[in-house]
């Protein structure tokens, strides 16, 4: 019933259903689930930190490039028009210009900010240095931004737009289309690499 303070560090509470477990030793590539609600509690990977940083840097570069290069172009009757992410955001004008801001936030600014925070938090950890100043607040913010980071949703939106337009006009892939395809794959891969429990326990000084 009563636990000593350092004992509490060895317990783990399922964030979804509140059951308490003694934190098990989990080997790399193994996963510990909550027995009741099956939420993944611990899922460590060897060298996950280094790989996460590498993937985050890649996605940052992809987002920057995909923002300015055109991803799709259409042609009909001798007229050709192409669009980049910036063009897409500014498709909303007048009353709808708040949506231009929202689109830029969801697909460029929030994903980029989240990745920068993640790199900031992980970089000292992988070199066995003490955590960066305010690393906890940085990781908390980065985690809170996860649902609002929608770059991969936009990438799939391109595929939907492509299908919708295919019988209306000729559609061409721009250079950024391939960046988007890579982006979806990498976002899914880094999601599987991330063990939040491991990161939090390595952040406590």
């Amino acid at each position, binding site marked *: *019933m*009563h*636990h000593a303070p350092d004992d*509490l*560090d060895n*317990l*783990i*509470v*399922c*964030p*979804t*259903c*509140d*059951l*308490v*477990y003694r934190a098990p030793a*989990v080997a790399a590539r193994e996963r510990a*689930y909550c*027995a*009741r*609600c099956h939420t993944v*509690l611990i899922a460590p990977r060897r060298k996950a930190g280094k790989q996460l940083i590498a993937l985050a840097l890649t996605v940052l570069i992809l987002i920057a490039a995909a923002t300015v290069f055109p991803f*799709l*172009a259409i042609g*009909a*009757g001798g*007229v050709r*028009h192409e*669009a980049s992410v910036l*063009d*897409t955001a*500014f*498709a*909303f004008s007048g*009353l*709808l210009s708040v*949506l231009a801001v*929202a*689109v830029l936030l*969801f697909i460029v600014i929030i994903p980029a900010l989240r990745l920068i925070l993640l790199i900031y938090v992980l970089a000292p950890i992988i070199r066995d240095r003490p955590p960066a100043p305010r690393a*906890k607040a940085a*990781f*908390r913010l980065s985690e809170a931004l996860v*649902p609002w980071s*929608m770059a991969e*949703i*936009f990438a*799939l*939106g*391109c595929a*939907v*737009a492509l299908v*919708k*337009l295919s019988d*209306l*006009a000729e559609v061409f892939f721009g250079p950024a289309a391939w960046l988007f395809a890579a982006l979806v794959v990498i976002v899914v891969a880094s999601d599987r690499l991330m063990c*939040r*429990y491991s990161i*939090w326990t390595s*952040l406590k000084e």
Partner: protein
Amino acid sequence: MDLPERVKTAREQGLVGCTRCTRPSPAGTPHCPRCGSRLQSRDAMSLQKVWAWWLVGLGCYIPANLYPMLETRTLVGTQSDTIVGGAVDLARHGNWGVAMIILVASVLIPVGKFVVLAGLAIGVRHGPQISEAWRHRLYEVVEYIGRWSMIDVFVVAILSALVQLQALATITPGRASLFFALSVIFTMLSAQSFDSRLIWDSAKGARPARNPKERIA
């Protein structure tokens, strides 16, 4: 994983678990010592917040269906399409596949989210009619799928940016796109406000008698 003899919830042990980093602290601790998040055994305001965002979200979803989502100007004329109108139009042109996808993604899923969130909130307050495991599964689906609804808004943006072929054809976003985006954002906030631990609290207590008026989801 090594389960203790009898697994108990943090609340039963006089502890409060951090939902961000999973560390338990003695009940009453304001901030988690490991990650600094605010600690609450159960979010007492959870249901109020769920309902508040839910109502605003529903309020935005109605105009999202009444106003046009897209305005298409071609040589033949101008056409304004609502979400359902556009799907019906596609189906009439024999494009059944795409029409079904649009109806599922823009109508069935958003309406389903509203129904499930309301059902979960009602279940916590008035006694659930379906098992914890199922309600938990429904909650996970709603939380996961929520952000993907934004794809409609992105598609409108992409089409409008792309189809700018002078006199031949131009597409401009309609007013519904703003309401649809707001509706997605508010339902995401509603789902995030729901404290999933409330689902499991009823597991221990006696279940209230079945009442056909309170059927959920």
